[in-house]
């Protein structure tokens, strides 16, 4: 156990300098731009631009050097200590028993020097971890691991020969996962921007004659541009997923799950199994028809993590889910199918509200736009279908203390969790449901880790609520 404060690996200078540069990238670019373009493109301006660039890089390097010189870390029986900065001193101590994991991340720069960044994860920390050590050599990582592991459960106990349960994402599955990722979040802003451009194009065309003359061409032009934008966004999202999930490997190592992933930035996360409170099976719109799903873990204390970090595995065939979990996470393994559905009479409660909303929205759109064709009215049957799918997706099961809850919001989502791990659970009724003797059941396994099944028979819901109560010991 080393209590002597040590410096980061010198590679940290480069990493820190690049971080500073990245933070200052925008001002530097603006300066460069004004220098080069402001006074015309002559050699003088270019020289000045180059000067700014050199000054920027030199400044960042100096900042990196100072940060490296001022940064010390040490481990003792109390915890990991970290201090940094000359002008603004920062000192952090994370007690050993608060450490949830040491994640290693190797970005391009770190890999150039054969080092890794270590993120010390705690329950309260953000996505990056309470302490970030930007560059640490392999033997120093081992020392850190040993010091933390000596307190907590040991990472690997003897016999490294023994084959650990492991799953690796094949290149083909990686491609399928990327193509079916369906990042609506990226596509929607693009569509919004596209339609805005579209309407602006028409506002500019104030004289009617010009508009009618331009209409066919420009309409097609804008539609093409929009389509191109969509394709580009989709391509970007596919590329992003490919890079993020490249070489995705999950290994069960004693009481930890090790998840390694990433092409440019290799990251390795070790999640203690006792912190995993649930597994979520997510079947996106593009995956469900092919029987494909992604697996996520619900981890207490990792709330701020990006969704990629909570991915247990990016692509599994539905029939393989149970064997997969049985091998890697037997504590939570369960069959996501064979669930008790809400009663048939509840179906209209899933369908009707959405249909009405669709009719109102579609009608309003028709009136506002004064559409030639009543296309917006199609929203009503579309949302009715959506509601019907919601009804078909809903279900639950509680067997041997394992709870399964399935619901749908565009994507099908099934939560598998031991009933004893619930953070809270609730039963809710609105006046209409009270009259019809129906009720909703909702559970929470962590921040954001919620599931709800709507419109169950009230006595069934009440019984489920009762069975989920903590057993009096």
């Amino acid at each position, binding site marked *: 156990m080393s209590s002597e404060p040590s410096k980061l690996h010198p590679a940290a200078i480069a990493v820190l300098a690049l971080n500073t540069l990245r933070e200052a990238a925008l001002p530097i670019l603006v300066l460069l731009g004004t220098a080069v373009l402001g006074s015309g493109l002559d050699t003088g301006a270019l020289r000045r631009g180059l000067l700014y660039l050199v000054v920027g890089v030199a400044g960042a390097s100096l900042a990196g050097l100072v940060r490296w010189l001022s940064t010390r870390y040490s481990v003792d029986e109390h915890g990991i200590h970290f201090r940094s900065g000359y002008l603004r001193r920062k000192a952090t101590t994370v007690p050993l028993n608060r450490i949830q994991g040491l994640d290693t991340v190797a970005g391009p720069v770190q890999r150039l020097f054969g080092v890794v960044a270590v993120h010390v994860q705690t329950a309260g920390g953000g996505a990056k971890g309470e302490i970030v050590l930007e560059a640490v050599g392999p033997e120093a990582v081992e020392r850190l691991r040993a010091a933390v592991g000596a307190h907590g459960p040991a990472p690997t106990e003897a016999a490294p020969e023994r084959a650990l349960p492991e799953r690796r994402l094949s290149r083909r599955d990686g491609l399928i996962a990327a193509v079916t990722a369906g990042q609506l979040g990226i596509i929607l802003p693009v569509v919004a921007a596209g339609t805005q451009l579209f309407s602006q194009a028409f506002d500019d065309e104030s004289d009617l004659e010009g508009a009618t003359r331009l209409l066919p061409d420009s309409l097609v032009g804008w539609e093409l541009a929009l389509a191109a934008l969509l394709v580009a966004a989709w391509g970007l999202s596919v590329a992003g997923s490919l890079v993020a999930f490249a070489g995705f490997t999950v290994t069960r190592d004693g009481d930890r799950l090790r998840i390694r992933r990433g092409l440019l930035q290799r990251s390795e996360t070790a999640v203690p199994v006792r912190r995993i*409170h649930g597994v979520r099976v997510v079947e996106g719109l593009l995956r469900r028809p092919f029987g494909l799903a992604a697996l996520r873990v619900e981890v207490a204390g990792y709330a701020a993590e990006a969704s990629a970090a909570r991915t247990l595995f990016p692509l599994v065939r539905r029939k393989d889910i149970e064997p997969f979990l049985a091998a890697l996470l037997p504590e939570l393994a369960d069959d996501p199918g064979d669930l008790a559905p809400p009663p048939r009479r509840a179906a209209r409660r899933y369908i009707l509200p959405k249909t009405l909303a669709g009719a109102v929205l579609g009608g309003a759109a028709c009136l506002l736009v004064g559409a030639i064709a009543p296309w917006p009215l199609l929203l009503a049957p579309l949302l009715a279908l959506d509601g019907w799918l919601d009804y078909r997706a809903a279900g639950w099961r509680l067997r041997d203390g394992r709870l399964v809850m399935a619901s749908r919001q565009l994507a099908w989502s099934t939560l598998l969790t031991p009933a004893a791990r619930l953070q809270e659970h609730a039963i809710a009724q609105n006046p209409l449901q009270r009259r019809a003797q129906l009720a909703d059941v909702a559970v929470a396994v962590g921040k954001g880790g919620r599931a709800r099944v709507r419109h169950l028979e009230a006595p069934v819901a009440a019984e489920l609520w009762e069975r989920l109560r903590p057993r009096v010991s």
Partner: protein
Amino acid sequence: MPPEPAHRLAPGARWLWRLQGLIATAVVVAATSAAQSELPGGRVWLLLPVAVLAIGVGAVPELRWRRWRYEVRDEEIDLRHGTIWVTRTLVPMLRVQHVDTTRGPLEQLFGLATVSVHSAAGATTIPALEDADAAQLRDRIAALARTPDEL
């Protein structure tokens, strides 16, 4: 369904919520009188503050108070609340990470306090309790929740 949770909120809760409703009404009055001349429909808009008054001061506080029940048992916290949606929530004592009491400016006026119970899933609150009751409840939950450190 197990028996209803036993305890009600402080009777003063109703007056606290009525005051809040009154403030909301004042805001709506100010907004409608400012916007009335701009909007089509004219005087019809004056009905809006009346509706807010009737719902926010007349109906909701009483209904909400009647619905609200809580009970802290050794192994769980049991809540029932809601005006339109009636929700029965259960938080296992094992999952409680910390408890705190807060007193907003309006609550102080009525000598009331809110107890917030924090778990890994977020905070659950029991609003508008008598000051002394809130402190007692907080200490009781804190004592009951002092169990092995498991998230």
